[in-house]
């Protein structure tokens, strides 16, 4: 097991290293001078040269990459040339907002998805089961930003049940939670369907197993059998994908953040892209990609712990 974790961890690190280097190289090899883009075409050559020197752009690419990793090892993501602040400071300032949104979305999706999947497995082929099946697929398919826009249109602008923008007054938890509802629903709705489908499939499998039959033979109440013996096992696959969900949602949060004008990494990246603020683009992509790779790693490890066959497969591939 330790060998598997080490191998998988090293691979994840290597992939992260390749991905970050690729991004770095792309940013720095693109035609067009970043200094030109940042300062505009009318800037004097001296000013451009000074900015280039400040950003380290006058060095060869490999030296720049080496310096970048050296800084990264010291927790330094560079300096935002517009505001003259540390990129790491800017990114980590926004991260809690995105994390709160992601956790609310995944929490809500789990709380709704598990009972929905469980009920449709127990009432197989009933109207509820069919409706859940159709809705699950629908929830997964519809782009989250369309859901976000419709929620904004009806629940915030038209009926004014929820606030339309921002993250709420700092320190006021009720207000912040109120601001969190719509973005979290937009982000988590797809996952409700996904979790319901997963739970339904594994619940159907578990209900056929011997220990359930034994529990029935012992005359245990159906409720106890379902909650204590079946559901406990049936939710395992869901637990393993939650890690992956958090990673995916961190980037998916972007649309919810933009539609509801909420602070967060996604909104930061979008603004950085529009103003071509490369250090901030690099910093926010780096942080989300790291989260994404780590969450895939964690969910792989949890999966392998629960299912030893995967470890064996990992060895041969």
């Amino acid at each position, binding site marked *: 097991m330790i060998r598997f974790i080490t191998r998988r961890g090293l691979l994840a690190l290597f*992939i992260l290293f390749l991905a970050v280097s690729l991004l770095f190289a792309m940013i720095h090899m693109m035609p067009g001078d970043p200094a030109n883009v940042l300062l505009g075409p009318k800037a004097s050559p001296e000013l451009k040269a000074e900015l280039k020197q400040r950003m380290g752009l006058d060095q060869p690419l490999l030296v720049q990459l080496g310096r970048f990793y050296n800084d990264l090892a010291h927790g330094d993501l560079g300096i935002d040339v517009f505001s003259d602040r540390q990129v790491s400071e800017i990114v980590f300032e926004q991260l809690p907002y995105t994390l709160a949104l992601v956790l609310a979305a995944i929490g809500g999706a789990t709380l709704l998805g598990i009972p929905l999947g469980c009920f449709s497995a127990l009432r197989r082929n009933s109207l509820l089961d069919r409706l859940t099946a159709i809705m699950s697929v629908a929830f997964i*398919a519809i*782009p989250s930003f369309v859901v976000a826009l*419709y929620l904004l249109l009806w629940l915030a602008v038209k009926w004014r049940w929820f606030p339309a923008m921002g993250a709420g007054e700092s320190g006021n938890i009720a207000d912040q939670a109120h601001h969190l509802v719509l973005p979290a629903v937009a982000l988590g709705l797809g996952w409700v369907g996904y979790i319901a489908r997963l739970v339904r499939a594994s619940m159907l499998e578990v209900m056929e197993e011997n220990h359930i039959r034994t529990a029935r033979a012992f005359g245990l109440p159906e409720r106890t059998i379902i909650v204590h013996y079946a559901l406990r096992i049936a939710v395992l696959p869901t637990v393993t994908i939650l890690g992956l969900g958090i990673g995916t949602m961190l980037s998916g949060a972007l649309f919810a953040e933009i539609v509801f004008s909420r602070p967060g990494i996604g909104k930061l990246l979008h603004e950085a892209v*529009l103003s071509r603020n490369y250090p901030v683009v690099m910093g926010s*992509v780096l942080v989300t990609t790291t989260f994404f*790779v780590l969450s895939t790693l964690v969910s792989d490890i949890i999966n392998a712990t629960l299912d030893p066959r995967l470890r064996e497969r990992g060895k041969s591939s």
Partner: protein
Amino acid sequence: MTNRAGFVRETFTALRKDSLGMTGLVIVVTILLLTLFASILSPYDPLEVDVYNRLVGPSWQHWLGTDQLGRDVLSRVLYGGRVALKVSLVAISVSMAAGLLLGMMAGFGPKWLDRVLVICFDTLRSFPTIMFALSIVALTGPSLNTVIGIIIITSIPVYGRIVRTQTQAMRDNDFILAERAMGASTAHILRHHVLPNIAAPLLILASMDVPAVVGMEAGLSFLGLGVSAPTPSWGSILNDGYSYLRNSPWPIIAGGIPLILVTLGFTFFGESLRDILDPKLRGKGGKF
């Protein structure tokens, strides 16, 4: 050829029994037709500005109202489908072809090549797609070709991985070994044995991929990073509508509905196709 015709007929007969899959197919075909005949069906030129009729609601003149420049929303929605269609057609066929080639090379080629390709696939997949897309657009500036390129790059690993797994599973089969022993070339084996066997999973994957691709294009255009103005795309209609949300909800409603329909249509159709074509489900007497 008769075999292939029989296969199509058999698939369609099975599909007709599945109401959800059939609904999906009807939605998909209807939207395809509306999009293809947009130039005949559109009541107005989608780019025609009419400042006296800005942001008006639905009426007999403008069935879905007008946007902030007085352009007819219905005409823009109909023409907007062309962008979605173009992006999904080009992006999916190119990434499927490239994924097929690379996946077969990984699955059938030497071990080192397999390792290199798998690491490349995993590296590309390690970027969250939307973040990757945004950082590329930051460098190249918004354009439809960039969107297509991004979707191709991020989709190749998905197709490549599936083809690799299927090819590897086929490679060790006895009949392939027998073919080899009889002197069949790798190209012959790949063309006559591996390709027909991976065609069905690829087809399913492609039809399930359409909603993601359409959503991606619309998402990037919504962020102002896809098609450039004034070209209509469902995403750019939503983007325009978002800025004037408090004045008129119609562009948002009208731009979102085709997106929802297309994604639902293709998903229902794809799911049904999977149930029909997946031999594992069929063998177990799944849905049919």
